[in-house]
């Protein structure tokens, strides 16, 4: 068996595959964040909280009404999106005219409130959620056994990422969204309802976070604190990828997953911190991120 730096090559491949699975997660989460920042110039610090709401919602509908995971895939992003609409209309709307850092501070406070309320209601230990029956078991990839559910997550995430990128960059709706946020008065003059576009954009962005929550519920602990553990890493991904770029966050998310996977093998304690090392290096060399454009 060949070895690289003392690690057998088969084990390394296994780790890389797992890293890729995690990367898909990062990509999906940072996608929503990138959309919201790229188009609305809002730094949505509450993104982790929306992700958590998606996961808790999934648990709730199963626990209360026995609604399966499949339905949650549809319902949770919808519910989170609607909540996002409320947040945008009531709160964020008032901050468009001031420095975007106020948006960051507001969403930071919002995250504290949401997480605090959920913690008050459900406690810190978390809520039980298992893998849907049909996905239990693993695929034999030769060098490792990959649980079926994780393979599904990869597929689903890549599909969603591609679909989102396609809608935003290649369809007319996407064009309206991009134009409406780049030059609202002009687009409004053309008769397009810009405020609705903006609200819709925010709802889509947080809806994606909610969807990530649904995907996470079977494998990760569903707890009120699950979002705050991830939020700064996701932010780092978006910044590295370039804050306005959707492609940037997808690529960076996947890349980070791979790099973290390698770190876990060679210097495991640093696996949560390696992203910040990368961020510092990238920002020194390319100030607007890998794919970003300086505004």
């Amino acid at each position, binding site marked *: 068996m060949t070895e690289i730096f003392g690690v*057998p090559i088969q*084990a390394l491949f*296994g*780790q890389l595959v*797992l*890293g890729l*699975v*995690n990367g898909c*997660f990062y990509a999906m989460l940072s996608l929503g964040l990138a959309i919201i920042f790229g188009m609305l110039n809002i730094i949505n610090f509450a993104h982790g909280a929306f992700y958590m709401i998606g996961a808790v919602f999934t648990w709730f509908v199963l626990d209360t009404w026995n609604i399966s995971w499949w339905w949650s895939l549809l319902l949770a992003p919808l519910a989170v999106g609607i909540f996002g609409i409320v947040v945008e209309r009531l709160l964020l709307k008032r901050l468009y005219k001031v420095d975007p850092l106020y948006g960051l501070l507001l969403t930071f406070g919002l995250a504290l409130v949401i997480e*605090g309320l959920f*913690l*008050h209601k459900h*406690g*810190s*230990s*978390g*809520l*039980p*959620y*298992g*893998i849907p029956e049909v996905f239990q*078991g*693993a695929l034999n990839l030769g060098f*490792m*056994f990959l*649980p079926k*559910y*994780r393979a599904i997550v990869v597929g689903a995430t890549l599909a969603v990422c591609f679909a989102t990128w396609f809608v935003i960059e290649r369809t007319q709706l996407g064009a309206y969204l991009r134009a409406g946020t780049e030059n609202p008065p002009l687009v409004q003059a053309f008769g397009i309802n810009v405020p609705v576009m903006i609200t819709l954009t925010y709802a889509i962005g947080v809806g994606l976070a909610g969807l990530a929550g649904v995907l996470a519920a079977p*494998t*990760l*602990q569903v*707890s009120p*604190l*699950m979002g705050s*553990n*991830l939020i700064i890493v996701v932010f780092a991904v978006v910044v590295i990828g370039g804050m306005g770029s959707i492609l940037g966050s997808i690529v960076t998310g996947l890349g980070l997953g791979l790099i973290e*996977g390698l770190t*876990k*093998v060679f210097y*495991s*304690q*640093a*696996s*949560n*911190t390696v992203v910040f090392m990368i961020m510092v290096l990238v920002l020194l060399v390319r100030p607007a991120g890998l794919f970003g454009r300086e505004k």
Partner: protein
Amino acid sequence: MKAKLMGAVAGLMLSVVATGGFAQAKSGKISGGVVKIGVLDDMSGLYSDIGGQGDVTAAQMAVDEFGGKVLGAPIQVVSADHQNKPDVGANKAREWFDGDVDIIVGTVNSGVALAVSKVANEKHRLFIDSGAGSTRLTNEDCSPYTIHYEYDTYATGTTTAKPIIAQGGKTWFFLTADYAFGKSLQSDTSKFVEAAGGKVLGSVLHPLNASDFSSFLLQAQSSGAQVIGLANAGGDTINSVKAASEFGITKKQKLAALLIFDTDVHSLGLSAAQGLYAATGFYWDHDDDSRKWSRAFGAKMGGKMPTMVQAGTYSSTLQYLKAIQAAGTDDPDAVMKKLKEMTLNDATVKNGKIRPDGRMVHEFYLYQVKTPSESKGPWDLYKLVTTVPPDQAFQPLSQSRCPLIKK
């Protein structure tokens, strides 16, 4: 400029007036005429389920059971949230001890516990910690005013290791949280494994609050060890167990959670956690006394069964009151002397004793998580594997690094 100053003065005055907090003098047999018990815990964060509001309830139950009065003086329970911040905790401890709080119980967070222990030592007031795991409380940082109740990482680690090794789990691999408690869990347990003739095949350190454990578990799997020791806690343990179940690791390897509470197992659910080994100083379903007390606790806490931390807070509060009664005064030195002489018996502890280094020792138990078919209720989680006597469960006094112990 005047406006600015007005604003500043008003603002400062407002916040200054809003505080208040006086230092009071103490005197008399029961100082201040009231015995005040301070429950200092994480009420709003990561550890709120393990101790939290439940600790306040537990302490109050002890007070009620004792009769609400000791030596003619009323007993009062106050509480505060240290928010897992040692400076908030230490501030509160100082404020309480400089006021009329006689004893602090609870804490859970090791950093806070160590800080409070120093304050208690400085102010000559009692501190009984029933939640933090760090063995430093009875070793390097021991104090004549601190009692480390219920458990520590040495006890949970070795109680888990011993029976498993006896059953044939000789080779171990550790999944360790990159934090002081994780590393001490690993080192204490490793020493035990090797002393019992087993072998530690390897370990991997993971950052705290790592969401995904698949990669670390894969490393554990490829080591081929018979037992995977989870030297972590809380959300990390839950995520490790969930991932282990998902990857089918539990089919070939045993999982031992070196620090886990029943609230964690309850949140995991039995289908993911079944077969997991868990050591604890208290389980609600252990005997008739514990069942009776736990049901009373559950009635006040919406059906939740108590964790060993909450049981420890109840027990330490009750024993403290008994010690005051026996000593005839609430003077901290006299009460502490009495506590170290007493044999501790109540609904949650049998034949407990407090050693000169402040370590409270009692029986420790190894449980295994039931399969879903074996369980008859939402909190019917564990079946007993074995009981470990106190002299084997806790670090021997001869190995203690506490400066108070004369060698």
